[in-house]
């Protein structure tokens, strides 16, 4: 049940360019990513391959991104798969599979080229199979201290390179939700299943669906706020298992917006004391297992402040939440906690709707820089100095050429946000006509009609 892709690290929409390409890579062949991985794993010279998802073609490559005269380049047609052993800067087990480019010993001595026999003669000569290349640290004799090399210092024949084990190389803080290291085995040594595969275990954590969870390849991750990083295993008999990863000792303050009177974003930093759901049900204490059993035991989540029965967000949900004291309602969001304002302070003010505003604020209320009115990118403007000569559309200053009732605005330099309002507020006392009383008879078309019969019958 192990996929041949498990030996590879994937870079999406990326191509490896070798200049000049010598020897030229072999011609592309047909095949799925897994078939190409199998071919590449079998071939000694192959270290990576491009896979074109569209044409289901792949091109085996004798180099990686760490090879000389090679560079990575964006290319939406390809995914680049590279053998992990050539990319990892840490070792698995005794590191006999290590193929990285470290070339100094743990004491800082430069390594002697394996090809050379001076200053130290030896019998470990390079071959296509043993990976002894250049003067890189290697472990041809499975030394339990890991990769080593002969040194260029005549007085020091050989020395360990001190390359860390992968489980120690990248440590984890809190529950490891932000762990992005390259451990791909569970604590019992079982290899992890790739997140982008649904076999041997089907699962909901598609990398595309959870872009912020780092679900790369088959590395241990913590997408569901478990106690620590884990993975689905390649053992059909065991769905998932925790991984062993060193906990960071250095006190790295977690960059969390701690708030008490309101919550920001998803409220993971909310540390206030609201402890009732909006429907008036008290929250269940986090250190209690009744009426609802759960795994959010406070001592296992030291960073989440699961105190008392306060609303909290230990698992990255939409908002702070809690287990409820009512047996029939397991959890409830605490959306009634106010959201913290997330806008820039107003730098200037405007009268009326701001149609005569002539100030020089050129930022939106979220702090995004305004696009110049005369520019055509990133947004092609429907309103411009040409179409509205009288509106003083100068530079990228906020203006209100269409008498928008919510004030001056601008096109923004953020490709995803065509326009937004600015960090300018109505001047106090500026009279905005209050809501009009009923306007004259209104007409609607193609909307707001429903089959009332369904209303009575439901379904």
């Amino acid at each position, binding site marked *: 049940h192990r996929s041949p892709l498990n030996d590879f690290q994937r870079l999406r929409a990326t191509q490896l360019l070798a200049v000049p390409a010598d020897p030229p890579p072999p011609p592309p062949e047909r095949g799925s990513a897994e078939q190409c991985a199998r071919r590449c794993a079998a071939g000694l010279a192959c270290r990576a391959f491009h896979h074109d998802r569209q044409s289901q073609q792949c091109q085996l490559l004798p180099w990686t991104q760490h090879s000389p005269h090679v560079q990575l380049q964006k290319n939406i047609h390809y995914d680049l798969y590279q053998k992990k052993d050539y990319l990892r800067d840490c070792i698995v087990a005794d590191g006999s599979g290590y193929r990285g480019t470290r070339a100094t010993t743990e004491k800082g001595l430069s390594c002697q080229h394996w090809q050379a026999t001076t200053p130290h003669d030896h019998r470990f000569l390079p071959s296509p199979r043993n990976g002894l290349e250049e003067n890189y640290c290697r472990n041809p004799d499975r030394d339990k201290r890991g990769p080593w090399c002969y040194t260029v210092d005549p007085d020091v024949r050989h020395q360990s390179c001190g390359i860390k084990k992968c489980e120690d190389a990248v440590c984890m803080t809190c529950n490891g939700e932000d762990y992005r290291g390259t451990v791909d085995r569970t604590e019992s040594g079982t290899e992890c299943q790739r997140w982008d595969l649904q076999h041997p275990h089907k699962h909901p954590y598609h990398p595309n669906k959870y872009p912020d969870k780092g679900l790369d390849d088959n590395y241990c991750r913590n997408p569901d706020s478990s106690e620590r990083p884990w993975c689905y295993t390649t053992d059909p008999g065991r769905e998932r298992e925790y991984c062993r990863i060193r906990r960071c000792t250095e006190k790295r303050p977690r960059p969390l917006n701690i708030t008490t009177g309101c919550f920001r974003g998803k409220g993971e930093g909310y540390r206030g004391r609201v402890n009732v759901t*909006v*429907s008036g049900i008290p929250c269940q204490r986090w250190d209690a297992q009744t009426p609802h059993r759960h795994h959010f035991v406070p001592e296992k989540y030291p960073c989440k402040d699961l105190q008392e029965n306060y609303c909290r967000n230990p698992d990255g949900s939409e*908002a702070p939440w809690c287990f409820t004291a009512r047996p029939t309602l397991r959890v409830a969001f605490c959306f*009634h906690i106010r959201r913290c304002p997330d806008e820039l302070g107003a730098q200037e003010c405007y009268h009326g709707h701001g149609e005569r505003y002539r100030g020089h604020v050129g930022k939106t209320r979220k702090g995004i820089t305004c696009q110049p009115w005369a520019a055509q990118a990133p947004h092609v403007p429907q309103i411009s100095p040409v179409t509205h000569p009288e509106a003083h559309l100068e530079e990228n200053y906020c203006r209100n050429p269409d008498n928008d*009732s919510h004030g001056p605005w601008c096109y923004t330099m953020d490709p995803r946000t065509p326009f937004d309002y600015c960090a300018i507020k109505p001047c106090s006392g500026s009279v905005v006509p209050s809501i009009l009383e009923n*306007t004259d008879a209104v007409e609607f078309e193609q*909307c707001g009609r429903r089959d009332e019969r369904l*209303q009575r019958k439901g*379904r």
Partner: protein
Amino acid sequence: IVGGQPGNSPWTVSIRNRAGVHFCGGSLVKEQWVISTRQCFSSCDADLAGYEVQLGTLFKDPGPGDPDQQTIPIARIVCGPSESQLVMLKLASPAALNSRVALICLPPERYVVPAGTVCEIAGWGETRGTADGSVLNVAQLPVLAHGECNAALRGRLKESELCTAPLRAGVGACEGDYGGPLACLTADCWVLEGVITPSRVCARTDQPALFIRVSLYVDWIHKVMKM
């Protein structure tokens, strides 16, 4: 919805997170645009990959074979003017309109719903045991005049808020209904006059319920869809 009953509201959508869990409501105002409330979303430039809207079914968690169910990924979120607490969600593809999925009308700009108009809220939120929580529930609420509501709230009412009168029986929106519609029948069409926002208590019997007054932001809504 507390104090409601199962009903049909073909413009009410269920907004679901990456785990497929319903967490807020919304209203379909164009085939590819849904209106909801800012309170439901972590930020104005949140990456909503994996988030979806569900339409065309009365069930909160329909079975796989539900005939008219449509599930459409959310492509973008656009936040409304500062004090509006509104967001617009652009869907990755247009919804197919049919007897189960319909657009709700937008009111004329700055239109005021006459006091006493009986409007309807809809949602898959908490019913507090007053109805079947697995289906869409609706409830009727009468609109309260702005001045009267302002007096009841001791002057704290904002221009951007619309009130409905408290009912003795305890009828109102609750957790999970936020972002859903307050729809009023005007000229034989259902019009989105309010958006449900979180309150500290559900279905109060002693205070008016507050909604976002949509008619104040109709110009912004049209501008977003145009741009």
